[in-house]
């Protein structure tokens, strides 16, 4: 019972700290611009912590360790892809996106292509991807709270939903920045500190390698487990490369990632922020695989079960036990909750921003509209989390990446680097990419397939959906050259020239 009480106390503490920092940040939030983009004046160091804090979701904190424990080293491609996605974002998108001067992805689409239809379609995609990404966060919160405190599964989701709402309602983007920066360092500490103790225990026990060929867990030898191209679907190379496409190209299209870039003062700062983010993510992502490896030795019964997502939280009590183990579990629970809160908050701000601008602001005034939208942005994924099939957190997040890669990646890349993009091309490309990946998502959430090419293609749709979306966008743009926006050149000047040069940027 005492461990349950400690877990609850940890969740409570993170919640209170989050709300307190949010309220403190509120002192700086005065205008609508503060709410949406923190008035674009966040220092790269703080911003990088905030971006990393927001990006490291439940899938990173709990999901990776669970997946690596159950399925082996091939799941390590997830964290590698999530980090490499930032490199792709840095070299192709970061500075031009900031210089475009738009608030959100739909803003960018409209400014670049001068079309309300593109804007509407982009808004629909932002909301769809946002909800698809928040839903597993709330499910993961349920798993974490159940493991730590014994409360039923929906309770964790409810706690996260309520805290996110309170925080977003009170402070918007400005206070969220401080909250998320705090949450990055909390997550890193929460994962690093227990790991030190766990590794010491493991060494004391003789330090047996989890990849020992003679170690069989769940019928899988250590060698098979440690093989990085060994997907269960039977088409390991296809699945691995498709996952790479999704994560490398999907990062730039995630609504909460993109919105963060507008909070940089200028294009140069956007680049520096991104490099710092890469460092912080790399620092974090070396830790979850070690938990998975230890889990293979100390928690073999979790392999292949839905409880695998909780392996990070289970290890301290199994390896250390007593009050020390309970304290470490409490710390990990706190970190996990920081993960749910940070990502859900960021996505809520992004989705709410879009709903505000495209639906609410026609009916209600400024900040009130934003608050109403935030409620909508949280309640829908909470309801979705209640009805969806129990799918691993990282799998759903992977699908959200695939969807972003098949829709916003072509829009951003062609919009930034190719003058020939037309509104008709963008609309058809967004439609094709969104429909293909959307169909795959629905199939994944409703049907449980096993084996065969079709299952492999549907569970990792990026490798075929992304090229098709690109091809559609280019082909239709070529067929409709008369629809080229008149100000394309001026917009290119704005996207690519450094702010220090005095130019007419339209």
């Amino acid at each position, binding site marked *: 019972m005492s461990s349950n009480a400690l877990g609850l106390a940890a969740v409570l503490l993170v919640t209170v700290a989050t709300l307190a920092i949010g309220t403190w940040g509120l002192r700086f939030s005065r205008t609508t611009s503060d709410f949406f983009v923190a008035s674009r004046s966040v220092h790269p160091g703080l911003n990088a912590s905030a971006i990393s804090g927001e990006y490291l979701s439940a899938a990173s904190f709990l999901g990776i360790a669970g997946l690596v424990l159950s399925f082996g080293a091939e799941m390590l491609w997830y964290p590698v892809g999530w980090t490499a996605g930032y490199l792709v974002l840095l070299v192709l998108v970061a500075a031009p996106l900031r210089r475009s001067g738009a608030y959100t992805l739909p803003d960018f689409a409209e400014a670049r292509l001068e079309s309300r239809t593109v804007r509407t379609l982009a808004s629909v995609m932002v909301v769809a991807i946002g909800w698809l990404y928040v839903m597993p966060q709330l499910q993961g919160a349920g798993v974490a709270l159940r493991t730590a405190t014994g409360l039923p599964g929906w309770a964790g989701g409810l706690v996260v939903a309520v805290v996110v709402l309170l925080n977003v309602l009170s402070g918007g983007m400005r206070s969220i920045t401080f909250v998320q920066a705090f949450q990055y360092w909390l997550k890193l500490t929460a994962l690093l500190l227990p790991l030190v103790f766990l590794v010491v225990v493991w060494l004391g026990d003789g330090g047996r390698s989890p990849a020992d060929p003679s170690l069989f867990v769940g019928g899988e030898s250590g060698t098979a487990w440690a093989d990085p191209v060994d997907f269960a679907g039977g088409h390991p190379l296809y699945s691995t490369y498709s996952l790479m496409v999704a994560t490398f190209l999907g990062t730039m299209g995630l609504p909460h990632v993109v919105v963060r870039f507008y909070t940089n003062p200028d294009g140069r700062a956007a680049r520096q922020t991104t*490099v710092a983010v890469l*460092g912080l993510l*790399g620092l974090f992502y070396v830790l979850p695989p070690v938990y998975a*490896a230890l889990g293979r030795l100390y928690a073999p019964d979790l392999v292949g079960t839905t409880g695998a997502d909780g392996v990070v939280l289970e290890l301290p009590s199994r390896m250390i036990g007593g009050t020390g183990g309970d304290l470490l579990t409490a710390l990990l629970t706190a970190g996990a909750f920081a993960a749910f809160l940070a990502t859900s908050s960021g996505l809520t701000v992004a989705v709410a921003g879009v709903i505000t601008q495209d639906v609410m602001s026609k009916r209600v005034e400024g900040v009130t509209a934003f608050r109403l939208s935030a409620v909508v942005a949280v309640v829908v994924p909470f309801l979705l989390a209640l009805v969806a099939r129990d799918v691993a957190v990282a799998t759903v997040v992977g699908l959200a990446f695939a969807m972003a890669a098949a829709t916003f990646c072509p829009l951003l890349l062609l919009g930034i680097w190719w003058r020939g993009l037309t509104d008709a091309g963008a609309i058809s490309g967004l439609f094709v990419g969104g429909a293909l990946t959307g169909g795959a998502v629905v199939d994944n959430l409703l049907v449980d397939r096993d084996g065969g090419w079709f299952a492999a293609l549907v569970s990792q749709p990026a490798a075929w959906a992304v090229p098709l979306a690109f091809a559609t966008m280019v082909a239709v743009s070529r067929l409709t050259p008369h629809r080229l926006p008149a100000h394309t050149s001026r917009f*290119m000047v704005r996207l690519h020239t450094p702010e220090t040069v005095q130019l007419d940027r339209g």
Partner: protein
Amino acid sequence: MSHQGPDRAPARVRVTSPWTERPRLRPRATATSEIDAQSAVGEIYLRTLLRAQLRLALSILVVLVITVGMLPLLFALVPSLTSHHLLGMPVSWGMLAFGCYPVLLFLAWRYVRLAERNERAFARVVERS
């Protein structure tokens, strides 16, 4: 601009011979004005910057593909990377779980240096002329 108050005198218009005024009417064209006017010369300035940045981005991505991107193929073709252990773990595991991040960070750092150099070169050319 178009409508002025009734109490204002009509704006003065200088009437001079086009031949005597011609040299003075054409200020020296600067690179920034060429870009602002979207002239052919301005287009060349912009296109040069765009191409340099795109070439840099693509070259970084090519390095990404032949380092991290080739790993699945490498692991599939050389299974001994998994059966051999180094520092207590399979070599492939070490490369994937720990080795990728320094490569990514190095590429990012390198990109930012070169991208800023491209921009400085552009600013120098445009502002000097």
